[in-house]
């Protein structure tokens, strides 16, 4: 057991060989990089899938290799990989692992062995997921929501084995996440260094901590749903399977409730949105504060807003189910609770803007991404107000408006923060600096590109273009402009897709050829920039743990010699 709080290195695990140092490592920094590389790799698969979808939608009929079944499989796998295996794993497993111990002043996570186990189980879940591409029938094409009965009924692609690999992979992922999540929560509560009160933690830690608590409470719903559907699929139970006629035959199942699955799925699925969003909220607050050289506006309100959003997100799930046939009175309750979430969220947006107000803004690449996030998040949030209302949602449901909304609010926005965060902490993680020109080029193509992709989709949605359709064909309500818009969206998507090459080239090239980075290139006050070595060594802090004397946002303090005061600097 690692004693993280004491100034005593003895109980800390020590790697003895290359294998225990870099492969079966218990060091949170190595595990963070393992998590990140795995998540980004599988995320690239999902990115390729989205490019294939766009090829089909923009130029229908030109790619005979993409059949309707393939298209549905691309949609399903793209969605699930991006939400769970990329965003959740990268933000919590990657950034959570790297930042929590460094930001709260611990030597490592409190349960390093469990932390290692968490990564290897996550890798296993990814391997099982990828196996879905190679089983007979291919991966599931049920949509990322995996609704039964269609997910396990004949006629849906991958209804035999693809869905099974997906459900097993999800169950393993939940186990992996639970191990990691227990670590993140316990480390924040138990292993903060001397002087690091809860309210002196950077907002990144608050976001990741709250998201971890939410993950621990929300993922069991996915676990239970996956296990029950596996029972329905392989053991012939009827938790979710109603009496049906399938391919002209009455199925042996009876009485099951597809709605029960939807409730379980969205009890996980909605908090999941905020599990992805809250770490992004936290990280972006820190990026804005550091690069605007101003303390974050309304720190306490920012913390409370994170916690309140986290709590509220557990009572809004059925706003995904307005058209599911549930009791209509539910819609009233869930629309109200959904709109209430807008209040703490708006507080956060105002506070970001007020932090920027009259700040000494340095438009470096991480800051560009942080400001871009404010744009995309406001846009995605505003279209959420439309969809949160039952009467507006019903006609917009299952159209491209929904696709545009959730991609802006929980696809593009967290991804922009992730890019910003990688640019921001790269010098600390690698000890090298990336190329600024390539970074700015990557930013502008990505930022303008995502608008070119997702803004027209709102228009398509209002026209009533349905989502998840392989081809639109000849229909009376779809004008020619839809096809034109689809072509342009696809071209923009392919350009953005290609532009990500700039990012990967920059990161990999800089790893070897980048100039040596200053230990604290941005002049940041928080603890992770004050480590004795860059990149931080095993045990993070050398012989003595740091002592914290102030909060993480002492920027541009009048009378101070520099425009920031590190958290470790004693009061005069």
């Amino acid at each position, binding site marked *: *057991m690692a004693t*993280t*709080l004491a100034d005593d290195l003895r109980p800390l695990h020590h790697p003895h060989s290359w294998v225990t140092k870099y492969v079966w490592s218990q060091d949170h920094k190595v595990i963070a990089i393992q998590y990140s590389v795995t998540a980004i790799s599988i995320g690239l698969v999902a990115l390729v899938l989205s490019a294939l979808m766009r090829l089909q939608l923009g130029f229908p009929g030109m790619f005979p290799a993409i059949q309707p079944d393939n298209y549905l499989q691309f949609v399903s796998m793209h969605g699930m990989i991006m939400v769970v295996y990329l965003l959740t794993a990268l933000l919590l497993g990657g950034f959570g692992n790297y930042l929590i111990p460094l930001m709260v002043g611990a030597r490592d996570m*409190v*349960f390093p062995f469990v932390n290692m186990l968490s990564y290897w189980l996550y890798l296993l879940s990814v391997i099982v997921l990828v196996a879905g591409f190679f089983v007979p029938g291919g991966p599931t094409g049920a949509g990322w929501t995996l609704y039964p009965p269609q997910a396990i009924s004949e006629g849906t692609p991958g209804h035999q084995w693809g869905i099974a690999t997906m459900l097993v992979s999800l169950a393993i992922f939940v186990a992996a996440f*639970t191990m990691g*999540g*227990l670590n993140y*929560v*316990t480390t924040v*509560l*138990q*292993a*903060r*260094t*001397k*002087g*690091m*009160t*809860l*309210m*002196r933690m950077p907002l990144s830690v608050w976001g990741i901590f709250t998201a971890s608590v939410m993950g*621990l*409470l929300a993922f*069991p*719903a996915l*676990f*239970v749903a996956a*296990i*029950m559907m596996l*029972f329905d699929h392989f*053991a*012939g*139970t*009827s*938790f979710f399977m109603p009496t049906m006629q399938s391919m002209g035959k009455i199925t042996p199942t*009876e*009485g*099951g*409730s597809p*709605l*029960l699955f939807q*409730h*379980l799925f969205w*009890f996980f699925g909605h908090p999941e949105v905020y599990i992805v969003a809250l770490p992004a909220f936290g990280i972006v607050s820190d990026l804005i504060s550091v690069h605007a050289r101003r*303390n974050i506006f309304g*720190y*306490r309100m920012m*913390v*409370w807003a994170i*916690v309140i959003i986290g709590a509220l997100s557990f009572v809004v799930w059925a706003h995904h189910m307005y058209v599911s*046939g*549930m*009791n209509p009175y*539910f819609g009233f309750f869930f629309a109200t609770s959904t709109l209430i979430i807008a209040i703490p969220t708006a507080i956060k947006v105002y506070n970001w803007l007020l932090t920027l107000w009259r700040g000494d803004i340095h438009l470096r690449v991480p800051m560009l991404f942080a400001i871009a996030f404010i744009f995309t998040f406001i846009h995605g949030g505003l279209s959420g107000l439309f969809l949160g209302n039952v009467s507006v949602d019903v006609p917009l449901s299952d159209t491209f408006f929904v696709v545009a909304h959730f991609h802006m609010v929980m696809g593009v926005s967290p991804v922009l923060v992730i890019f910003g965060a990688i640019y921001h902490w790269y010098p600390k993680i690698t000890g090298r600096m990336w190329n600024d020109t390539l970074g700015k080029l990557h930013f502008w193509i990505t930022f303008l590109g995502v608008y070119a992709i997702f803004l027209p989709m709102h228009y398509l949605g209002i026209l009533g273009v349905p989502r998840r359709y392989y081809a639109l064909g000849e229909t009376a309500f779809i004008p020619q402009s839809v096809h034109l818009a689809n072509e342009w969206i696809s071209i923009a998507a392919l350009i953005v897709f290609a532009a990500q090459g700039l990012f990967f080239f920059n990161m990999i090239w800089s790893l070897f050829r980048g100039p040596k980075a200053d230990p604290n290139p941005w002049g940041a006050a928080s603890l992770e920039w004050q480590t004795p070595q860059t990149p931080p060594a095993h045990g993070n802090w050398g012989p003595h743990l740091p002592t914290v*004397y*102030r*909060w993480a946002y*002492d920027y541009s303090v009048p009378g101070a010699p520099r425009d920031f005061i590190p958290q470790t600097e004693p*009061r005069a």
Partner: protein
Amino acid sequence: MSLLARLTEKSWEPASDRDDVSGRPSAGAVGLSAYVAVACVMFSLLTAAYFMRRGLHSAMGHAGDDWLPMPDPPLLWINSAILVASSIAWEIARRAGERDRAVQASIAGAALGLCFLIGQWLLWRHYQAAGYFLSSNPANAFFYLLTALHGLHIVGGLVAAGWALAARDLRHIRLCALYWHFLLLIWLLLAGLLVST
């Protein structure tokens, strides 16, 4: 220091420093409480699903009139009694001042836990022999699912107990005992659910 006071601290003011490092509970205790919360959510969701599938939410459009209750054989009560006895043994271990006594009591507790698992296995066999198969009715499906998940938690508890006994560490034994009480509580609630419907 109350949670409210912690969360309202004005950390930008010079006087703020209200964190007593020495007063924190151990990492194991915090981790265990967090896991108990996770397991509580899981079993609560299953209970909610149980009621929903059983058809109590007719207002939500769930018919569910195919539910056939299962009988309550004596073995159910015998198993419950074994688990209660197991928990008592763990409580003795938790309160023991000296290590040897704690180790002996926890060995007894773990052995009784193993007996409970075997008993549950026999209960499954009993139901199978009587024709209550997994797929024949949703009541049966829920019974097997709930007992299997609870059994898995018992297995996890036994692994943790083996680890604590190997280390002969009183703190670990105490945490194991608390986890065991939690599993007993979950079992009593689950058994109550199964018997009452």
